[in-house]
Every structure is written in structure tokens, then in C-alpha cells.
């Protein structure tokens, strides 16, 4: 009963996210464009799709709050108490990696990137090549978020200054951009924003805040956050590397 009630509340939140989108589009359709919708567009399918988005997102977020988040937080606390840095870092990597693989926005963008890469002639025009590209892209991003969380945990343990590390990250991005094929640059930059949405942020923040409050002299507000900042810079670096080094190697073998 309680679950059902909070599910309804979550649906209201998802609906609130969607409402401005629908309102702005409706306004532009009725007041600015004023043309009949193209006949290829199935409006009923679209409405069903929107219902799927609202219900699906509510189920997803509520399900995370019931299952993954409490267990993940308990585990994070257990590893902090355990006090073994190796296990803590291993867990941090696995957490960042696993949660990114299940990130809905990343699944969506990787799929689009793959079909655009096929159309643009970046990879071969086969279904296997397209699927392989989308899968590899997601794996690269997932590994990068895992590494970002490891670096973030190390930073909290050692007390390294955050803004200095972010600036170094930016400089690496700038340098890598110069050697990466232009076709991969846009995808790389966008993958940084995609990782920090529904699932990775709460899990990783829980780890950071738990860690920062367990270590003396660390401020959970200031130090707990840094993990997210890394999680949005590291994917850019890794996907740029993938574009400049990984993709040429891969296309020689599979794509």
C-alpha cells in the first residue's frame, strides 16, 4: 500500500518533468507552426509512448529507492568501516561501472550515436557493427565512470584539492580534442552529461558522503560531491581516447 502511494507520488514527479516539454511543444504546434502533423506520425503510438515514459520512469526510480540504493548505501558503509583501501577502491569501481551500464539516458544516446555513426560512414553499414559500436561506447563510458569514482575516492582519502584536479581534467580534455577525429568529439562531450542522471548520481553520492563523514576532518557537503564532478569529466577523456585510438584499432578487427 505504502509502495503504491509513493509510486503515485513518483509518477507525479515524472509527469512534472514531462509537462513543460509537452506544453512548449503544443504551444509551438498551435501558435507558431500551425500545420497538420505529418501523416507518417502515429499520434496514438506517441501518447502510449509518453505513458510508457512516465510510468516506466516512476517504476524505475521507485525500484531503485527500494532495492539498489539501500543495499548500495549499506555496502558503501560496510566497506568504509572495513577499512581496507583495496576492497574499497574495487567496490567503488564496480559501483560506478555497474550503475552506468544501466543508465537509461546513456542507453538512449549510445543507440543514437551508433546509428548516426553508420549513416556518417564512421563504421560499416551492418547491424552487428552498429550494435557493437553502441555496446563498446557504453562500456567505455562505464569503465570511465568506474575510474572516476576510484579517483574521487582516492581524493577523499588523500584530501587532494578538488578544483585543481578538475582543471587538470579539463586540460587533458583540451589536449585530447586536438588529436581526436572531429566526428567523435561531439559524442565524447555529450557522454559526459549523460552519465550524471538517474542512477549513478544517488549511488555514487551515497558512497562519497559516507566516506567523507567517516574520515576525520572531511566535510561531507564539500568532499562528498567531488565524485560527480569527476564522473562528468572522465567519460569525455575516455571517449576521446576511444575515438582517437580505440576506434581505429577496433575497426581494423570488427567494425
Amino acid at each position: 500500500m505504502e509502495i503504491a502511494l509513493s509510486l503515485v507520488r513518483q509518477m507525479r514527479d515524472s509527469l512534472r518533468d514531462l509537462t513543460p516539454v509537452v506544453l512548449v511543444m503544443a504551444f509551438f504546434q498551435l501558435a507558431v507552426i500551425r500545420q497538420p502533423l505529418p501523416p507518417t506520425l502515429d499520434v496514438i503510438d506517441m501518447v502510449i509512448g509518453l505513458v510508457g515514459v512516465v510510468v516506466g520512469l516512476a517504476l524505475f526510480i521507485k525500484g531503485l529507492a527500494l532495492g539498489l540504493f539501500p543495499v548500495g548505501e549499506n555496502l558503501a558503509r560496510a566497506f568504509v568501516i572495513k577499512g581496507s583501501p583495496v576492497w574499497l577502491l574495487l567496490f567503488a569501481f564496480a559501483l560506478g561501472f555497474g550503475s552506468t551500464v544501466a543508465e537509461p539516458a546513456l542507453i538512449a544516446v549510445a543507440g543514437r550515436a551508433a546509428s548516426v555513426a553508420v549513416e556518417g560512414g564512421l563504421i560499416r553499414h551492418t547491424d552487428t557493427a552498429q550494435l557493437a559500436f553502441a555496446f563498446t561506447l557504453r562500456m567505455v563510458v562505464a569503465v570511465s565512470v568506474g575510474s572516476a569514482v576510484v579517483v574521487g575516492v582516492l581524493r577523499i582519502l588523500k584530501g587532494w584539492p578538488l578544483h585543481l584536479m578538475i582543471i587538470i581534467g579539463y586540460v587533458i580534455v583540451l589536449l585530447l580534442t586536438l588529436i581526436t577525429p572531429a566526428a567523435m568529439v561531439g559524442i565524447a562531450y555529450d557522454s559526459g552529461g549523460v552519465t550524471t542522471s538517474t542512477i549513478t548520481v544517488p549511488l555514487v553520492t551515497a558512497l562519497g558522503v559516507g566516506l567523507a563523514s567517516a574520515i576525520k576532518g572531511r566535510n561531507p557537503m564539500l568532499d562528498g560531491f567531488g565524485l560527480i564532478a569527476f564522473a562528468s569529466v572522465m567519460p569525455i577523456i575516455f571517449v576521446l581516447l576511444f575515438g582517437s585510438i580505440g576506434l581505429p584499432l577496433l575497426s581494423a578487427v570488427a567494425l
Partner: protein
Amino acid sequence: MNYLATFWRTLLDILPIVTIIFGFQYLVIRKPVKRLAQVLIGFLMVWVGLSLFLVGLEQALFPMGELMASQLTASQFLPELAEGTQRHWRDYYWVYLFAFTMGASTTLAEPSLVAVSIKAGEISGGTINPLMLRIAVALGMALGITLGTWRIVMGWPLHWFIFTAYLLVIVQTLRSPRSIVPLAFDSGGVTTSTITVPIIVALGLGLASAIPGRSPLMDGFGMIALACLFPIISVMGYAQIAQWLGTRYSLANKHKQR
């Protein structure tokens, strides 16, 4: 059949995190999971929810973004083009206006931003106004994606914009009040919710394939990156202005007391 395939694929998507969580729990920490039934129900909901969302994404969110992009760039919608001339970037003003309205409205309504801004107001002890902070984030986001659409129209390299934005972020990070920096970086992530990301991506790719001389691969991506960067700049900018006003106000008070 399509639905079944999606359900099967999402099962594979959530398998890694499930394996990791239970693997560490039972093999390393070696303690039973508290409230196992509830946790399992939670994972089931994640699976069904993610599948439904991805189906809806293909059926609704992507087509919506693409539709707007193709309609707003259709030749019968744009102003008359004189014979033999190139289209001017100003002709696409409805595209910029649409991007701006979309960015601002979705950000202002974003539930997680409301929570973050109230918290920030409490922490700052009154120097940060929650509503002003939300407006700052929304303006940053709106400006980011409007600039993104303009870049696609112009066909300029994305990294010019990113480099400039990075430079601004770095300079501001060094000059802003320390306490606002984490918040500013956080607000960049808040603007790109799971619903807005697909629409923005579809809009960018749609624009890049509709505008003559642009290709989706070279020009279509980059709006998300700009949408994440500009709120960081606008939030730190707001903090600097608030701090400046604050010191001026207290200085004026001192003068009065004399």
C-alpha cells in the same frame, strides 16, 4: 515482439549492477541482505520500469524532438529565400526561441533542482535566494542549448565553444566563494534529466540533418555538453553578484551607522 526484445535487452543492462551488489554483499561482506523481499521487488520494478521507459523513448521522446526539428527548419516555414542566396542564420530564429523556451521551462520545473536550491539557500544562510538560484540554472541551461542550436546552424566546431566555456569555468572557480563551487558543478548535472536528454539529442540530430551542409555525425552532438556547462557558469556568476551586492549592502549600512 519489439516489446519482448526490449525487456530481454534491459535484463542484460541491469545484470551487471545486480551481480556486483549481490556479489560484494555475499562474497566479500558476507552478511545477509536486509529486507531481501523488498529489495527483490525493487529490482523487478527497475527492470520493468527501464523497459517501459525505453519503449516510450523510441515511440514518443525521440520522434517529438525530431518532429520539432524538421518542422522548424522546413523550407515552407522559414522566410522566403531570394533566388540564388544563402540562408542567413537569423532566418532560424524560431529554432533558437524553441530551444530557449524548452531549456528554461524544463529546468524550472525540474523536481530535483527545487530540492537542491532550497538546501543551498539554507546552507548559505540567506545570501543565496532559492528562486534566484533556480532562475540562474534555468537561464544557463536555456542559453547553453540555444547556443548549441546556433552552433549547428553555423556549423562551427564544437570545441571552440567548449574551450571558451571551460576557460570561463576555470576563472570563475578560482574567483567564486568556495562554498558555491560544489553546488555550481552539481547544478550542471541536474539540468540533464532522463526525459530532457533524449529530446535535446533528437533535436540536435534533427537540426543537423535538416539544415543544408550539416551532417548529424559532425554537427549533431554537443547540445548536452553545453547544457551541462552553462549552468555552472551562471550559478557561479550569480554567486559572485550576490556576494558583491552583499558586501556593498553591508558597506552602505556601515556608512549609515556613522
